[in-house]
C-alpha cells in the first residue's frame, strides 16, 4: 500500500489533515491565524539551520518555531509595538533570513520551491511514520487537555478563577502548532501550512453546533480536501500542495451557500 508515490502522498496528506483540522479550530477561535503564519514562515530558517548544524530537519523546524513563539511572547511583554506589527516583523524577517542562509549553502543543493510550496509526492515511508507518530501524539495531547484548552479559549479569567492555568494552555497550543508545522512543512510548504489549519476549521464552523463537532468536521473536511486536491493535481497536472489548498477553498466556498440559520438557528424565542 506504500508502494507508489501517489498512495504515499494520499496517506501522508490525510494523516496531516486529521491533525491540522482540530488544531486549526483553536487557531480560528483564538484568532491566531497570523501567529501561525509567522511560525510557519520561520520554518525555512529552521531548515537552513538544521542543514548548517547537520541535525534532524523536523526537529530543527520545530525548535525554531518554538523559539519564534517565545520571542513573540517576550516582545509582547515589552508592549512597545502592537502584536500585529511584531508578527509582521518576525514573520518576514525569519523568512528572509532563512532564504539568505539557504543561499549561502553552496555544498548542499536545496529544492527551495519544495520547501516553500511543499512536495507531497516525494514523501517517503519514513515521512509517513513521522506524520502518524507525531500526529497521534498531537491528537492525544489535544484530547487529554481539551477541557482546559477550550475553557481558556472562551475566557482566560474564568478558567483561572476556577483553578485552570490558561498560560499553560497557551503554551501547549504553541507547542502543538510548532509540531504540526514541523511535520507539515514537507507536504504543503511553509507558505501554505496555515491554510490547512484555517480553511477546514472555518468551513466546519457552519456545519457544527458544538466545539467538539467542529473539530471532527474540520478533520474530515481537511481529509476530503487532501484527497480531492491530489486527484485533481494528477488529473490536470497541477502542483500538488496548491491544488490541496484550492480544493479546501472550493469546499469553503460551497459551505457559504448554506445559510447558517437553517442549520443551527435559534429554536427558542427571545426573552420576555
Amino acid at each position, binding site marked *: 500500500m506504500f508502494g507508489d508515490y501517489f498512495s504515499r502522498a494520499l496517506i501522508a496528506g490525510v494523516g496531516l489533515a486529521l491533525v491540522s483540522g482540530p488544531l486549526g479550530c483553536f487557531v480560528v477561535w483564538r484568532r491566531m491565524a497570523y501567529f501561525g503564519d509567522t511560525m510557519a514562515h520561520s520554518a525555512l530558517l529552521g531548515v537552513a539551520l538544521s542543514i548548517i548544524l547537520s541535525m534532524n530537519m523536523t526537529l530543527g523546524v520545530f525548535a525554531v518555531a518554538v523559539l519564534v513563539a517565545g520571542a513573540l511572547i517576550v516582545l509582547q511583554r515589552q508592549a512597545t509595538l502592537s502584536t500585529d506589527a511584531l508578527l509582521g516583523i518576525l514573520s518576514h524577517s525569519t523568512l528572509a533570513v532563512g532564504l539568505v542562509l539557504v543561499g549561502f549553502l553552496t555544498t548542499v543543493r536545496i529544492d527551495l520551491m519544495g520547501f516553500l510550496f511543499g512536495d507531497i509526492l516525494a514523501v517517503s515511508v519514513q515521512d509517513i511514520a513521522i506524520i502518524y507518530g507525531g500526529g497521534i501524539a498531537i491528537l492525544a495531547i489535544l484530547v487529554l487537555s481539551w477541557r482546559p484548552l477550550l475553557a481558556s479559549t472562551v475566557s482566560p479569567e474564568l478558567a483561572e478563577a*476556577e483553578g485552570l492555568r490558561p498560560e499553560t494552555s497557551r503554551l501547549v497550543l504553541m507547542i502543538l502548532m510548532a509540531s504540526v508545522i514541523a511535520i507539515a512543512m514537507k507536504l504543503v510548504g511553509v507558505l501554505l501550512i496555515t491554510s490547512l489549519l484555517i480553511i477546514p476549521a472555518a468551513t466546519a*464552523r457552519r456545519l457544527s*453546533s*458544538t466545539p467538539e463537532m467542529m473539530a471532527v468536521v474540520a478533520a474530515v473536511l481537511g481529509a476530503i480536501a487532501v484527497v480531492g486536491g491530489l486527484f485533481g493535481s494528477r488529473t490536470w497536472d497541477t502542483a500538488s500542495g496548491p491544488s490541496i489548498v484550492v480544493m479546501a477553498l472550493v469546499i469553503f466556498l460551497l459551505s457559504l451557500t448554506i445559510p447558517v440559520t437553517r442549520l443551527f438557528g435559534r*429554536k427558542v424565542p427571545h*426573552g420576555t
Partner: protein
Amino acid sequence: MDAVAKKENLITLVGAGVVRGGRTLVSGVDLTIARGEIVTLIGPNGSGKSTTAKLATGVLKPSMGTVTRRPGLRIGYVPQKLNIDWTLPLTVERLMTLTRHFSSPEIMAALEAVGAARLLKAPVQELSGGEFQRVLFARAMIRQPDLLVLDEPVQGVDFSGEVALYELVRQIRDTSHSGILMISHDLHVVMAETDTVICLNGHVCCRGTPSAVQNSPEYLRLFGERASGALALYQHHHDHEHHDDGCVVVDGHSHTHEHHEGHSHG
C-alpha cells in the same frame, strides 16, 4: 443554616497588596468575607478592584500582607460580560460544563434556579445581555461555591435587567448562604443588601455600610461631584430601614424596582 456556619470566615486579607514590575497595584487591603455576607468593591478604573478580587480567589499571590482562605474553599466566578466569537459554536448547555463535567439534571436544575432553563440549547452568541449574565450565574452556582465572585455583574444589561439581576444575587445569598464578593465599576450602584462596601483607589479609601460610605468625605473626594448623593442603592422592599437614613435613590429607582418584580426576566 445555623448561626455558627454563617459566621465562618471564608477569606481573610490582612494588609494585602500586589506589586508588579515595580508598580504597586494595590496595597494595605483588609477584608473578610463570611458566609451569607455581601462585600462590594468599588473604585475608579485601575484602582485595584480586580487585583483585590484575584488576591481573594488565589489567582494572584500577595506581595505583602497575608491572604487566608478556608481550606477547600470552592469559588464560583461570574466574569465580566464575555465576548464569545461567532467562530466558536457554543450552546448554553456546553458552556455549563466548560471547566468541569456535570450531569444533565444538574445543569437543568442550575438553569432553572436562575430562570434560564429554556435557553439550554441556545447558542451563546444569541443571548441578550441579561440572559447571558443569568447563564453565567447558573454556571457559577452549579459548582455549589462557598464564595461567589461577581465581576461587574450588570455590565451591558438594561435597567430592568439590572434590577432583576440584583434580585437574583439576593436570592442566591439567601438560599445558598455563600459569601459574595462583588466588583462594581459603576460607582453609583451598590446593592442595599451589601454588608460592607470597600472603596478602593490603590488602597482602601473608605469602608463601611453603603450608607456610611456614601456620606464619608473620602468617598466624596474620590468620586467628586458626580458622587454627591447619587449612590444608588437597590433596595429590596423589606429593607425599609435604609430609606430613612439618607440613602437617596436616583429618581424613581426603587419604584422601578418594585414595578419589575412581578415580571419574569430572562
